[in-house]
């Protein structure tokens, strides 16, 4: 049983989706238990994979036992880089599922099973991208993820989300096709689609690895993946798609989809093309770090200009993608930048999840769409707002939240690599984030509250003799995910030592593979 963990992670949500398709349409009460149990199984498997990788190193699994020499094997490979990401995907998906418990289908309840089928298939795609060891499967699973996201965005009732989904579809398909072209060139030159094989062939043949076709392939793959992760000049689809989608969809799409694309980039760099080859071409690294700096600055600036909560958070995602891409390309000898990137994938997934869950709760139970609408939210929903505050502090980078530590590792890498522009951009963006979130906190604490303004005169404030402030938390199924996400943000920060050490064993292991491959 425990040998099959890598495939069970995928199969649980896949069979959950099939079950819902068969039985969920007739009886909507089937949906929730199936979704939750599928995700819990995935979470347990993911944790099991982490434990196995921790004790025994990289796990290889051939689906249906077809081994690689036939050239048709589907390899699942779990190592120290991707196994923590699996756990985070399962956790965030579970939180989002709990969040959607009652209101996924409240507006038009006949769509509830459809929503959950797409939700589970999205999880299959995300798990698959993370765990597969085959470059072509990554393409297929990227498209599975993308198609389900289009559905999840367009399922909302607003008119705007359909147009946003259409634009996302066009951009996303072009991006995925670019990735496919890149993989095609790799196959053309190397005759293999297995990432490990590609790496060994490239490492054994230096002239081939430096050939123009391989470089072109790499550029195509990078541009395709950058489109998928909304790296700055290619970000156009993201703000509308995520801010107009229903809260339940945004709570799973925004934290995970872009982060998993960043992981694909890291995987391509580390175990397909090889870090030392990339580091030999230093000017590439400088170029990408400059692009990342532009992305960070642009994302932060756009965030300052937004007046809607979700739009602002979406712009922050664009800035965070800039952090991660820049960190991965720093090229410092100790690989602290890359470590920071992988750690930031985990951290950013959790903190974005926390913020989007809280923003979803505010929108649903307070009707807060714009920043001004948040006034008095601290009195009305103290616990949910506390979750939002934790998420906000993590984005700013206040210790002991995980955002502080990921920035710490990224900046350490940047200093060792001498990329001072990147350090400056990171710090400036933190300041902008502080401005953004403290503006929100100010509105939420001291903003004009129609109830509070009556009791302005007396010394105890808070409207003692006038109408008391009504405390009305969002219902438990929304409150619990927000608080759990906030707690995880802090826990991941407190336990950053072991997590980072674990990730670094993975990075060093792949580096060792490089040296033996020579």
């Amino acid at each position, binding site marked *: 049983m425990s040998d099959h963990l890598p495939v069970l992670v995928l199969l649980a949500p896949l069979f959950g989706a099939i079950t819902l398709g068969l039985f969920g349409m007739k009886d909507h009460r089937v949906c929730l238990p199936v979704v939750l149990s599928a995700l819990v199984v995935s979470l347990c498997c993911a944790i099991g994979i982490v434990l196995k990788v921790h004790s025994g190193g990289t796990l290889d699994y051939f689906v249906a036992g077809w081994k690689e020499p036939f050239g048709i094997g589907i390899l699942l490979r779990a190592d120290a880089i991707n196994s923590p990401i699996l756990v985070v995907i399962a956790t965030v998906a579970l939180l989002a599922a709990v969040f959607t418990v009652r209101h996924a289908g409240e507006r038009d309840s006949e769509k509830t099973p459809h929503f959950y089928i797409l939700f589970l298939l999205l999880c299959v795609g995300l798990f698959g991208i993370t765990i597969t060891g085959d470059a072509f499967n990554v393409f297929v699973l990227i498209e599975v993820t993308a198609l389900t996201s289009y559905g999840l965005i367009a399922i909302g009732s607003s008119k705007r989300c359909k*147009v946003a989904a259409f634009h996302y579809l*066009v951009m996303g398909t072009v991006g995925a096709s670019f990735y496919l072209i890149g993989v095609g060139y790799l196959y053309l030159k190397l005759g293999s689609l297995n990432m490990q094989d590609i790496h060994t062939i490239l490492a054994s043949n230096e002239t081939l690895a430096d050939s123009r076709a391989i470089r072109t392939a790499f550029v195509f793959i990078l541009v395709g993946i950058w489109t998928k992760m909304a790296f700055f000049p290619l970000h156009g689809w993201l703000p509308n798609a995520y801010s107009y989608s229903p809260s339940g969809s945004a709570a799973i799409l925004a934290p995970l989809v872009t982060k998993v694309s960043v992981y694909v980039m890291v995987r391509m760099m580390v175990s397909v093309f090889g870090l030392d080859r990339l580091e030999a071409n230093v000017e590439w690294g400088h170029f990408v770090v400059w692009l990342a700096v532009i992305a960070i600055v642009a994302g932060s600036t756009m965030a300052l200009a937004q007046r809607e909560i979700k739009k602002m958070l979406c712009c922050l995602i664009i800035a965070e993608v800039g952090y991660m891409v820049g960190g991965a390309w720093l090229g410092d000898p100790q690989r602290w930048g890359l470590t920071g990137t992988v750690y930031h994938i985990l951290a950013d997934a959790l903190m974005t999840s926390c913020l989007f869950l809280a923003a979803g709760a505010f929108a649903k139970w307070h009707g807060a769409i714009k920043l001004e609408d948040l006034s008095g939210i601290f009195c009305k929903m103290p616990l949910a707002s506390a979750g939002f505050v934790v998420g906000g502090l993590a984005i700013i980078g206040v210790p002991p939240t995980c955002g502080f530590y990921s920035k710490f590792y990224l900046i350490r890498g940047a200093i060792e690599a001498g990329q001072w522009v990147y350090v400056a951009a990171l710090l400036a963006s933190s300041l902008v984030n502080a401005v953004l979130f403290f503006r929100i906190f100010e509105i939420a604490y001291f903003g004009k509250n129609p109830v509070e303004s009556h009791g302005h005169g007396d010394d105890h404030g808070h409207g003692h003799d006038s109408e008391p402030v009504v405390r009305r938390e969002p219902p438990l199924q929304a409150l619990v995910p927000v608080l759990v996400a906030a707690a995880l943000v802090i826990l991941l920060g407190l336990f950053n030592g072991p997590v980072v050490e674990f990730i670094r064993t993975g990075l060093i292991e792949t580096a060792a593979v490089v040296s033996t491959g020579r």
Partner: protein
Amino acid sequence: METFFKEAVVPHFNFWIYVIIMMIGLWSVIAKNNLIKKLIGLSIFQTAILLLYVSLGVKEGATIPIIDHHAAELSLAGDAAAINPDAIANPVPHVLMLTAIVVGVATLGVALALCQVIYKDFGTLEEDEVLQKIKALHDDV
């Protein structure tokens, strides 16, 4: 010019054709205003990539990739000459493209469904008109 034609175009004409078709598709995605025309461009774009892959597997004078039983057994026993790889077309890119065709069809289906919903909501499929109507929605908020 003639040497360029002989050295770069003729031996790699499949790449030239794929790039030209792909650029036609991409141009249509970017430049056309009608959403359906954009989708047609997107399909052309994807089909060009299918053509690239399919042309990878082709070998001149090769046959279908079905290996007869005897030769397969000899080959598994270690006789490298039992199967002549030049006589068999490479099936892997073709099989990969089966998957990619399915992905393309699914994408097109979702896109057409979205177009239908957009047409229902806005009464038009011209992108600039849709965007104008969305702006009008913005002012209501």
